[in-house]
């Protein structure tokens, strides 16, 4: 899928995104997200910000650069970014082609991002390029499952899910390793599907 197709898909999803995600999913994940984002420090890159639902969980007074491929999503994120108590810049950008110099950020954060980047290893290599040596990557992602019957269910959901939104069967932990990161910790939050990944 090309960047233009991805942009079109997420521009299309922007209208109903908050309706589908702001109540149930975000409230369910809120304790985990609060804990996940609490370790933000230094100059932080956040991708992909979407409509900015995650901004409520960011600790105050951080220096955050957030990107998204969809201008419609960014339009919705803007009021939330303006209300953030700290520095939060929004940019329209493709995760596979980051327009930042090497070693720019101390940390990179993702939240349900690498289920949607067409070439996840390429995107993760870009993240590795822009994060300083010794910097770290924090991911809140959903992935495929290794266990029956959950893997079977996700495989059945995937053909529909990928048309309207994310893929649900990706091996994101494996992709992080393929991109050259060292995985420090993987913590399963729901089954082995929803998880946080820490890498450096």
């Amino acid at each position: 899928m090309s960047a233009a197709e991805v942009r079109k898909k997420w521009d299309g999803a922007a209208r109903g995104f908050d309706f589908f995600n702001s109540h149930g999913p975000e409230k369910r994940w809120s304790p985990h997200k609060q804990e996940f984002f609490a370790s933000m420090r230094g100059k932080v890159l956040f991708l992909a910000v979407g409509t900015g639902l995650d901004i409520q969980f960011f600790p105050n007074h951080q220096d955050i650069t957030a990107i998204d491929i969809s201008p419609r999503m960014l339009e919705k994120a803007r009021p939330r970014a303006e209300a953030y108590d700290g520095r939060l810049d929004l940019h329209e950008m493709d995760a596979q082609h980051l327009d930042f110099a090497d070693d720019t950020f101390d940390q990179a954060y993702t939240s349900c991002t690498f289920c949607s980047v067409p070439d996840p290893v390429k995107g993760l290599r870009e993240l590795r390029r822009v994060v300083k040596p010794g910097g770290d990557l924090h991911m809140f992602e959903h992935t495929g499952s290794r266990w029956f019957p959950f893997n079977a269910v996700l495989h059945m959901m995937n053909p529909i899910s990928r048309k309207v939104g994310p893929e649900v069967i990706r091996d994101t932990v494996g992709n992080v390793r393929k991109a050259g990161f060292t995985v420090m910790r993987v913590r399963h939050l729901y089954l082995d599907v929803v998880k946080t990944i820490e890498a450096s």
Partner: protein
Amino acid sequence: METRPYFILGDLISNMLAGAAAGCATAALITVNWPMPVSMVTGMALGMLLGMPIQIACSLFFGAFEVMIPMMLTSMTAGMAVAMRASMHETAGGAGAVWGVCIGVFVLCFTYISNAVLSGDAR
């Protein structure tokens, strides 16, 4: 492990609803003259199809994967099990719904136990 009553109750209601819908519809469609393998595949597919809109509606209130995975399992299992029963004995829609509700509760318990085993630091 989920401890908030709102979400535990939501999971329970969602799965009971998905099971009841799949069981009731399957029992209404499948009759004793259906070959069992055909009825089971049909019941599973019907359960899956019927479950999708219910999953989407319930996920608005109770979460994403935490709702969709067990509900999908419930819909398919309830459709398949009620179809198997309906191909052997006359099964009314109401009886199919009761079977579906029981299967929904069982699947939810299975998912909660699996979650307790799988969640935490990856080994």
